[in-house]
Structure formats: structure tokens, C-alpha cells
């Protein structure tokens, strides 16, 4: 047994030997070794669980068709964690923060700098609550899903044995809800900033078409033709803009859903192929992906909000 007087070199050697042993044993008990050598360390071999796309219910239906799914439980856990941390950090607030208050303040300040960097001072303050909430919700969902317990604790549900907790963003309803919130909030900010008619003029731009019609009735045929032509193009571009606004909901949903589901499937398949040590870099990748997806969801909402509240003239100038 290692004693107290061990040199650093000895400790490093033992550590490296341990990791190497885990690597070799892990490799030999996985599916890769099974297909290469046709044999594996049977007691350690696991079967591949089939990845499920829809969320699985954990209880019997409560009312109608609705039953608690494992993703709902995970989302509740996220909410409890976020609210609990914020509550604990603000209980005894000091002017010079320390401990948990310091951590929360640092995170919020980083977020505020990011939001104000993209949207400017005043608008940044106005957009900050929703953007920061979206960011914190997505990132907590993603990172909680990596903890042990998510995917390993099973329960008896109406559809057989299912895992009790699952990354909330792998249920397509959660990214859809976030995308709808983002859409509604961006439209609300746009409408409240420039007014209803001015905002709608982005999508329904009949100005030049009407001008062309007027010129036609007055007999100026050549200018009428060009006006009607460019008016028709304006209407078409406006309709395209409206379509792309709606398509944003779809793209937000599938970006977040796809990244989280693909990550979950990756973390199921890699330990099946080569158990133990090799899965560690993939956990690192999933940490990064969770952070980047949260940043992208919040950041894209922010960018579209900035575009929506830009005064009409400035937008045409920028475009």
C-alpha cells in the first residue's frame, strides 16, 4: 500500500498505470473489442439501450392524456436549482459580495456585458431579463443532464421501465416553448419600439405598389410600370421576411433539440463501444456544446430583437 513518504514521480507513475489499466479493461469489455476479437469481458459488457426520441411518461395519466414525463421532472429540477441558488445568494446581501452572492453577481455581470455589447446600454437593460433567463435555463438543463443519475435511475412507468430523469431539452416541447417565447418577446419589443403600422410595414409594404396604381390611373404609363414592378418586388420581399420570422421558430427549436439529442445519443453510444475512460472527452464536449447552445439561443434572440427595434430608416441603411 502506498505510504506517506511517496515521491511525486511515484504518484504520477501509479496514476498513469491506473488510467492505462482502466483504459485497457474498458476497451476489452466494450462492443468494439467484441466485434474485433469476438470475445469480451462478459460481466462488464452492457447492452445498447435504444435511444428514444419522445419523452417517456413516468406516472399514469393525471388528467386526459397528460402524464408526468421524465423531462418534466428534469425541468422542475432545473427551476428549483436556479431559484434556490438565487434565493440563497440574496438572503444576506452585502455591499461587498462574497461567496455565493459573488458567484451569482459575476455570472449576471458577464451576461449583462454580453447583452449590452450587442444591444447597447438602454436596450440591453430592457432585454436583459428574458435573454438571461433563456440562457440560464438552457445551460442548466444541458449541464444537469450530464450528472450521474440522469439516465441511470429507472422507474416503473406506464410504458415499462424508463429512466426517471432526462435532459429536459431532449423533449421537443421544451425547445419549442422557448422558441415561441423568444418569438413573442421579439415581436412585442419590435411593436412597442416602433409602433404597429411602422413595424407591419416591414412585412406588408404596399407603398410603392399603391403609388404605381395611382400613376397608372393618372396616365403616366412608363413611371407606373417601374413603380408597379418594384412595388411587386417589395410585396414579395415583405412576404419573405414574414415567412422567415415564422421559420425562426422552427430553426430555434430544431437547433437546440438536435444538439441536445445528438449529445445524449453520443453519450449512450460511446460508453457502449468503449466503456469507462474514453467517454471523458465526450463529456467535455457535451459541456462545451451545452454552453454554446445556450449562448446561441440567447444571442440569436438578442440579435433579432435588436433588428426588430431598429428604427425603420436605420434598418434600410444597414441593409
Amino acid at each position: 500500500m502506498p505510504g506517506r513518504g511517496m515521491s511525486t514521480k511515484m504518484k504520477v507513475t501509479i496514476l498513469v498505470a491506473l488510467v492505462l489499466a482502466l483504459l485497457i479493461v474498458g476497451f476489452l469489455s466494450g462492443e468494439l473489442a467484441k466485434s474485433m476479437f469476438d470475445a469480451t469481458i462478459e460481466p462488464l459488457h452492457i447492452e445498447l439501450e435504444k435511444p428514444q426520441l419522445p419523452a417517456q411518461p413516468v406516472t399514469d395519466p393525471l388528467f386526459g392524456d397528460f402524464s408526468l414525463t421524465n423531462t418534466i421532472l428534469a425541468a422542475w429540477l432545473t427551476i428549483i436549482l436556479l431559484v434556490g441558488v438565487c434565493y440563497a445568494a440574496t438572503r444576506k446581501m452585502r455591499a461587498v459580495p462574497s461567496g455565493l452572492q459573488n458567484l451569482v453577481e459575476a455570472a449576471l455581470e458577464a451576461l449583462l456585458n454580453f447583452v449590452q455589447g450587442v444591444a447597447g446600454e438602454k436596450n440591453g437593460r430592457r432585454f436583459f431579463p428574458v435573454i438571461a433567463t433563456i440562457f440560464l435555463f438552457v445551460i442548466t438543463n444541458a449541464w444537469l443532464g450530464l450528472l450521474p443519475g440522469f439516465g441511470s435511475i429507472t422507474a416503473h412507468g406506464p410504458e415499462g421501465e424508463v429512466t426517471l430523469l432526462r435532459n429536459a431539452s431532449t423533449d421537443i416541447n421544451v425547445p419549442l416553448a422557448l422558441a415561441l417565447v423568444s418569438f413573442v418577446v421579439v415581436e412585442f419589443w419590435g411593436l412597442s419600439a416602433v409602433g404597429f403600422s411602422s413595424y407591419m410595414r416591414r412585412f406588408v409594404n404596399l407603398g410603392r405598389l399603391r403609388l404605381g396604381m395611382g400613376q397608372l390611373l393618372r396616365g403616366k404609363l412608363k413611371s407606373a410600370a417601374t413603380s408597379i414592378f418594384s412595388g411587386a418586388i417589395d410585396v414579395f420581399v415583405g412576404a419573405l421576411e414574414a415567412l422567415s420570422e415564422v421559420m425562426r421558430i422552427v430553426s430555434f427549436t430544431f437547433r437546440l433539440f438536435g444538439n441536445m439529442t445528438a449529445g445524449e445519443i453520443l453519450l449512450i453510444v460511446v460508453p457502449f463501444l468503449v466503456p469507462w475512460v474514453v467517454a471523458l472527452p465526450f463529456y467535455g464536449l457535451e459541456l462545451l456544446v451545452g454552453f454554446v447552445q445556450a449562448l446561441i439561443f440567447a444571442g440569436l434572440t438578442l440579435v433579432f430583437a435588436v433588428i426588430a427595434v431598429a428604427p425603420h430608416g436605420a434598418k434600410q441603411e444597414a441593409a
Partner: protein
Amino acid sequence: MDAEAMKMLGAGLAVGVGLVGPGVGIGILGYGAMQALGRNPEARGAIMTNMILAIAFAEALGIYALITGIILAMVA
């Protein structure tokens, strides 16, 4: 060819061909960002923000292809 084989083939093609576009697109974006950064290192913040944004758009298209492949291979 039976349905199972077609599904597997479809999944492979969906992901393989579908990810060429986003791959090339992200490469071009990175190239543009590196050039801009080389010319004007002071504008690092704006360049990085816009690059990450554009990469998110390109990557979303790749994710659509991946979802199609996953659905074909594992759910359908």
C-alpha cells in the same frame, strides 16, 4: 432492396451528403473571420460575435440533416 436496407442507406446518405454544405460553409466563415481579425485585431469582439452567430446558422442546417438520419435509422 428491402425496407430495412433502404432506411439504413437513407440515413447514411442524409447525414453524409447533408453535412457537406454546413462543413464548407463554416470553413468559409472561419476563413473570413481570420482574415478580418488579421487586418484589424482591435475589432476582435465584433468579429467573434458575428462569426459565432453565422456559424450557428450554418450548424443548424447540419443538425437538421442529423435529425433526419437519426429518425431514419432508429425510430422509423
